[in-house]
């Protein structure tokens, strides 16, 4: 990472911590905000967060790796999380999963080469009466069919551009 980038990240983290406070209970909200802005929490970022909160970096790593939405192995701008739990399975999630892999060109747990899309499994999303359910960043799609997958991906692509970052998280 370039020094300039590191510095900017550091400043960003200080700003986030100033908002949430230096208390230990601010750790998860700080990591969530950080991930929202930078799509990932890097080792360097964990170090800075640890310094800011006055705890050991291993503590920050321990927390990050515990939570599914923080440890995400994929780092896409748009993270697709398909529910793999029982009601969505009964509702036909396997075919949606296959089509997601086909249309994104990646397997579950991977990120596209351009860093735009990540694909992951999720546990029950609380939409069991309308499965298969798919969460794309903060947006939930229900009764997803294999043929709709392509359209959902296109919707994401069309929000790229000047306002991509905001759009990705609104």
């Amino acid at each position, binding site marked *: 990472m370039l020094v300039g980038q590191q510095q900017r990240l550091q400043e960003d983290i200080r700003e986030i911590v100033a908002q949430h406070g230096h*208390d*230990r*209970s*601010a*750790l*998860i*909200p700080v*990591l*969530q905000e950080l991930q929202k802005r930078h799509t990932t929490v890097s080792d360097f970022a964990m170090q800075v967060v640890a310094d800011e909160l006055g705890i050991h970096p291993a503590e920050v790593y*321990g*927390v990050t790796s*515990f*939570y*599914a*939405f*923080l440890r995400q192995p994929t780092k896409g701008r748009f993270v697709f999380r398909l529910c*793999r*739990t*029982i*009601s969505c*399975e*009964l509702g036909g999630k396997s075919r949606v999963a296959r089509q997601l892999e086909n249309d994104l060109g990646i397997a579950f747990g991977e990120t596209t080469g351009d860093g735009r899309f990540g694909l992951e499994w*999720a*546990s*029950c*999303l*609380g*939409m*069991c*009466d*309308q*499965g298969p359910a798919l*969460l794309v960043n*903060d*947006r*939930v799609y*229900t009764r997803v069919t294999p043929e709709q997958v392509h359209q959902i991906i296109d919707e994401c692509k069309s929000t790229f551009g000047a306002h991509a970052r905001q759009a990705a998280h609104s």
Partner: protein
Amino acid sequence: MIQVNSKKTPFTFDSIEPESGLRAALGMSRADIIGEVSACALRGRGGAGFPTGTKWNLAAAARVKPGGAKYVVCNADEGEPGTFKDRVLLAEHADMVFEGMTIGARAIGAPHGILYLRSEYVYLRPHLESVLARRRSENLLGKDIGGVAGFTFDIHIHMGAGAYVCGEETALIESLEGYRGEPRNRPPFPVDTGFQGQPTVVNNVETFAWVVCILSRSASWFKAIGTKTSTGYKLLSVSGDCREPGVYEVPLGISVAELLAKVGGEGAKAVQIGGASGHCVPASEFGRKIAFEDASTGGSIIVFGPGRDMLAVARNFMEFFVEESCGQCTPCRAGNTKLLEGVEMLERGECSMSYLQELLALGETMQLASKCGLGQSSPNAFVSIVKHFKDEIMGRTLAN
């Protein structure tokens, strides 16, 4: 933008006058509020069914440690597979949930409230924040609430980060404090030593909404509904093989067969009651009652139609627990993996009856020796499917 369309019956909540429960509570003493909640025998709607009045009484009596204060926490982690009624409540009846938390705060003397919202529901947050802001502007939160001098209470929202185990109340508190969501040893209980070591009441979203109805109407109204030990109505989240999946308000004590008739699930082969941590009830037992003393559930009802492969169901549940175990204790961490391997052996038709008996014994050990409710209940689905569907799952050939 939030599409609810999950509501299949009217809810009692629709017909309760806004703030009528809080207004009643403001005119009552702490002891009288808790007395009402105890008298109606309301039991927690999150799954475990602990008497709410008893919990509040303990928290009210608990002593605050120096420099701190008590907390009211609303558990909106709703991670149990097949449950989505709290999502509907938060989307459509957020005011009532916050009103119930405010009554709880009044009852135990807590100035701070926290809504722990699962990250999967982050799209509900803007709506919930706007309801909170409006309540502040209407003096339903903040200082001297409702003109009652000295009654100060506010609520903030804390997001989860994707962990089923954080629905367990002590793991939830760990998570609130900024740690891994690993359940604590109990005792001490949260009512005594909870968030930041202070007396804390943790209740389910639906529990708070019922408190409002009880104070608005009466304890005797609520008590007249349901069974002797499971009073009142319950929201059920119904999914799976039925014509009308969604959220239903029913009196506790309804039989599985009656419910199936309502939701268009007649002819089902089995029903999973209580989600992944609940039990699988076969058609021969559809006379059983949905109540804490019989087939107990925090709200999850999953219907399996005649063509379903029950071993595939068992596999899905075991995969869930292998993924969601926090890994802190051995019976749960290793046991769930062993049970999943057992399912895979059954799929390949390679499991002897004596090994199956060993797996059932392992399930019993997990139920007894696991540290928290996750490990204690994770073998339930597997054990009940093995018990009721042996002829379907034994002696398979790969072609099945």
